[in-house]
């Protein structure tokens, strides 16, 4: 009996010893420390993500279990003219908006990097479009683009520049560019502030040296500023591309994808088919089409973030 008790005690000491040794191992300890956070990520990010991927391969409709249909959803979508129009819209929206945001953002960042009175206040004001909730700014644009009450049309008419209200959202191309303009307005501050931080890390000595060599402003920008902020620009552009590509709120509030699907992007079409139409499988498949593009963006930003390190 006594022997048995001592054996138990020995086993307990053994377990405790092994546990203690394991905890001294930094790898094990590190894993334990991040476990709660990992668990949260697993439940709230990984699970919905994997479920979304899976749904894209099923014919799940609301209220009913779906069955695996392989690539059927994707094949059908590729034959669907509304989806093809959505692909075009999404790429147009993303490419034009990101390009404009980048160019205007850099320009504004260079201007704000100069020394002038109340620059802190101006920099704070520049951030406003980014801070305002998307839904709120979308409603403002919705009013500005209204076919009857547009403030823009009203001003232009008062100035005698136009005779009739501009059909901002009723014409497919007008609607696309109106939405791009709204997105650009919202997104410029992200580029500006991000790049401003980069500009401030560039040593003034480089510009002084260039001045001594008689370099023009454009040369200084091209040979000094641009190369030095390129890694940051790549990261900012990648992030902006991700957000623009996956945009939903702005478009849903202003046009709901209309007129006649001319402004649908992946996010809005996916929501329309999955939530309003009840076809979860197809809606998920539309979202999954975004995945390769977004992965490329993430890889680009990773590459440049690492280079920064």
């Amino acid at each position, binding site marked *: 009996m006594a022997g048995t008790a001592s054996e138990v005690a020995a086993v307990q000491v053994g377990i405790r010893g092994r546990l203690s040794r394991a905890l001294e191992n930094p790898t094990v300890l590190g894993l334990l420390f991040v476990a709660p956070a990992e668990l949260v990520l697993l439940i709230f990010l990984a699970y919905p993500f994997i479920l979304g991927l899976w749904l894209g391969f099923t*014919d799940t*409709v*609301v*209220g*009913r279990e779906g069955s695996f249909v392989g690539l059927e959803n994707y094949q*059908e979508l590729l034959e*669907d*003219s*509304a989806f093809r129009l959505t692909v075009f819209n999404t790429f147009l929206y993303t490419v034009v908006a990101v390009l404009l945001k980048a160019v205007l953002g850099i320009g504004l960042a260079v201007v704000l990097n100069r020394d002038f009175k109340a620059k802190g206040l101006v920099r704070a004001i520049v951030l406003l479009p980014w801070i305002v909730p998307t839904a709120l700014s979308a409603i403002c644009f919705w009013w500005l*683009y*209204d*076919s*009857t*009450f547009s403030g823009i049309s009203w001003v232009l008419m008062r100035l005698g520049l136009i005779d*009739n*209200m501009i*059909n*901002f*959202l*009723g*014409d*497919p191309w007008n*609607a696309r560019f109106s939405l791009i303009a709204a997105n650009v307005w919202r997104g410029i501050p992200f580029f500006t502030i991000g790049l401003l931080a980069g500009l401030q890390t560039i040593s003034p000595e480089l510009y002084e040296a260039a001045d001594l060599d008689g370099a023009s402003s454009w040369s200084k920008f091209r040979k000094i500023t641009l190369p030095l902020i390129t890694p940051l620009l790549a990261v900012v552009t990648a992030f902006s591309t991700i957000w623009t590509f996956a945009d939903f709120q702005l478009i849903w509030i202003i*046009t*709901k*994808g*209309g*007129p*006649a*699907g*001319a402004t649908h992007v992946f996010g809005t079409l996916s929501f*329309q*088919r999955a*939530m*309003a*139409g*009840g*076809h979860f499988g197809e809606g998920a498949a539309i979202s999954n089409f975004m995945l390769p593009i977004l992965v490329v963006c993430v890889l680009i930003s990773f590459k440049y973030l690492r280079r920064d390190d």
Partner: protein
Amino acid sequence: MEREDSKLSRRDFIKATGAGVAGAAVLGSLGPLAGKAMAQVSPPKLSVEKGAELKVLRWSPFVGSDKEMWEKNTAKWEQATGCKVTTEYLSWEDVRPKAAMEASVGAGHDIVLGWHDDPFLYPDKLLDVTDIADYLGKKYGGWEDVCVKYGVYPKTGRWIDIPMGGPGQAICYRKSWVNEVGYDVMPVQMDKFIDCCKKLKAKGHPVGFALGHAVGDGNNWAHGFLWAFGGKTVNKDGSPAINSKETRMALEAMKDLYDNAMIPGCASWLDPHNNKAFLAEEISVTNNGISIYYAAKEKFPKVAEDTYHQYPPQGPVGKPTELHLMDPAFIFKHTRFPNAAKHYLMFMLEADQCGPWINAMRGYVTPSLKAYRNLPVWTEDPKHTVYRDCMKNMLWNGYEGPIGPASAAVMAEYVVVDLFANHCARGMSADKAIDIAEKAIVKAYKVKVKKAG
């Protein structure tokens, strides 16, 4: 004898629903229809679960008095049964996704007041409510035809929801302007309707009908217009029927309206646009609920005075082909209190509750039971009367095919609205626009067929 029966049933009714003098007054207002029906029917025996706590999800009221009366009626039920009801109000466009999610996971609210085809998306998740539907139908002069379509699941012949009615739409127009172009009232006959609209625009008073992704105004207008010419998305069996000469006629007529009568920008309109434009006197005619009239009464009395309502235009088919929102109330099988839930819905549609509720909404919602056509709200202001008949004149979403996931998908995808928008605003040929719509319809109904098989 008949008189005695009527008296007896009225007394029974008041006793059964705990009604007082007000109840008798409401009942009286229903006229002979109510008395006749009530003599023949007694409510189903439902033993309400003791201490039941019901969770109800419903759309946010369009008018404050709706909520006030709904909650007052709910409080009456709570008092009568000792149970509790928690009502969650949600923007009407958000009810469908939330209810769909609850149906999928089998948890959440007990009762949902949803929209259109919702119950037909997950019929097997819903409680059979045939007993209370039969009772209410018999007692209150029968259900409007379209309500039977929206309530009974064809496969089983059983009621899966209780249609509460629907926010109806009518043609809202400025009478003085219509008079200016030579019409006494807004014409109902389609060719005259279009002629009047064109003349109005020529006089500087364009009309406006949503052809953008306006969930209510756009869908209602586009479907009703298509049906008026005999066009339809599918046949009775769900086979595509959009590629027809009737659809082409409808497209041609809409293009005529769009080019020669509508204000620019209608292709971008969402639900609020026409209200704003009408109240700002930018348009002379539109399709809408009674909300425009009441908003005008509150803020623009001059506009209200000149605002009149008319039935939507009737095309070559020669009968009303209207589409309105439908509000079915359904109970999930996952409820722990099935009897309480059924009793609650039944109670809310009894004359003592439903009458004051409909009256309080001042015409925003047209009821689903025929007896309620006689409520004073429909005649106390003659401008309300058109809205009384919305349910009577209504066809169902996906007409003339079955109601279900496919019809819901076609509406959610704005297939009919976009059909018109593609032709009118994007300059697409009728053939091309129809081809796009047909592909979307085939796709939606193929899914349904596969599921059924």
